[in-house]
């Protein structure tokens, strides 16, 4: 939970830093503030509604959604790790965002619309993934406040580090963290999705201790085989595309 939120917060931070440093810190911060309020509203609206659902319905539907969502992360992480998709690079993202901000015309002395909107959009969209993960984990464990607190702790941690450095957190091993998050989301999605449709896992909750390593090893095996495939002469020429 904390790792997933940290990764998303790092991506949002890069966008806000680029826009703030290039155009208007004040407008960028207002954009972040409005996005956080909107995210809090989404969490407050959906959290209690989810926890009122019967546990099997909740685990079937929410587990299924978490599984599909986690498989998206894991799929991208495998493609990145095997060289079939460009690795996420915060320095490159920062440079690109800064260039776009420079080209966006004159800075408005009051509320700069570009800074506000880009910061709002970046924070809200990255934050929405955090909210989704926090709600699915929190609802399944009947403890949305704890999940929300973990998410908030990650956001505050990244914000504090980013504010002190005033630079994108390029040293965070983001691609590796995304791989781990993909494995965990997929594993928990499999477990809860199965429970939701009345599948009795051998060993009960301890089945997760098998599911997680199996998913991890399977993903790593795919990376190894894919790397070997792209390393062959016919595959090496056009392997990496964003």
């Amino acid at each position: 939970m904390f790792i997933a939120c940290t990764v998303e917060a790092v991506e949002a931070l890069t966008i806000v830093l680029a826009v703030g440093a290039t155009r208007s810190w004040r407008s960028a911060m207002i954009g972040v503030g409005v996005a956080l309020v909107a995210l809090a509203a989404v969490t407050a609206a959906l959290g209690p509604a989810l926890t009122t659902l019967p546990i099997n319905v909740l685990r079937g539907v929410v587990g299924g959604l978490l599984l599909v969502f986690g498989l998206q992360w894991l799929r991208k992480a495998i493609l990145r790790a095997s060289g079939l998709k460009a690795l996420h690079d915060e320095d490159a993202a920062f440079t690109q965002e800064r260039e776009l901000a420079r080209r966006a015309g004159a800075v408005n002395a009051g509320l700069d619309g570009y800074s506000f909107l880009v910061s709002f959009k970046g924070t809200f969209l990255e934050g929405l993934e955090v909210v989704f993960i926090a709600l699915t984990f929190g609802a399944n464990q009947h403890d949305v406040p704890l999940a929300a607190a973990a998410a908030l702790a990650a956001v505050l941690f990244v914000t504090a580090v980013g504010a002190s450095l005033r630079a994108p957190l390029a040293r965070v091993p983001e691609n590796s963290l995304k791989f781990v998050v993909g494995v965990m989301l997929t594993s928990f999605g499999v477990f809860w999705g199965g429970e939701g449709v009345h599948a009795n896992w051998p060993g009960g909750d301890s089945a997760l201790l098998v599911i997680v390593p199996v998913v991890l090893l399977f993903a790593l095996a795919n990376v190894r085989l894919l790397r070997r495939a792209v390393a062959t002469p016919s595959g090496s020429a056009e392997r990496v595309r964003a």
Partner: protein
Amino acid sequence: MNSVMSVLRFLWDFVVGDDWRIAAAVAVTLVVMLILSNNGAAVWWLLPVVVLVMLSVSVWGVARSRLN
């Protein structure tokens, strides 16, 4: 109507992502498991198998399209 479609498209991209086949396979498998479980079958193994197979199909599909 346009804004509704935009929201739906956003939700689709947000949850389903680049390969809809994975989401479809998960949804169908959960329904099949529900039916079989309610009839007393032990089908806990089905979801992990489908997930691992679909993950491989998806990433190797990308690999094939990039490498050929």
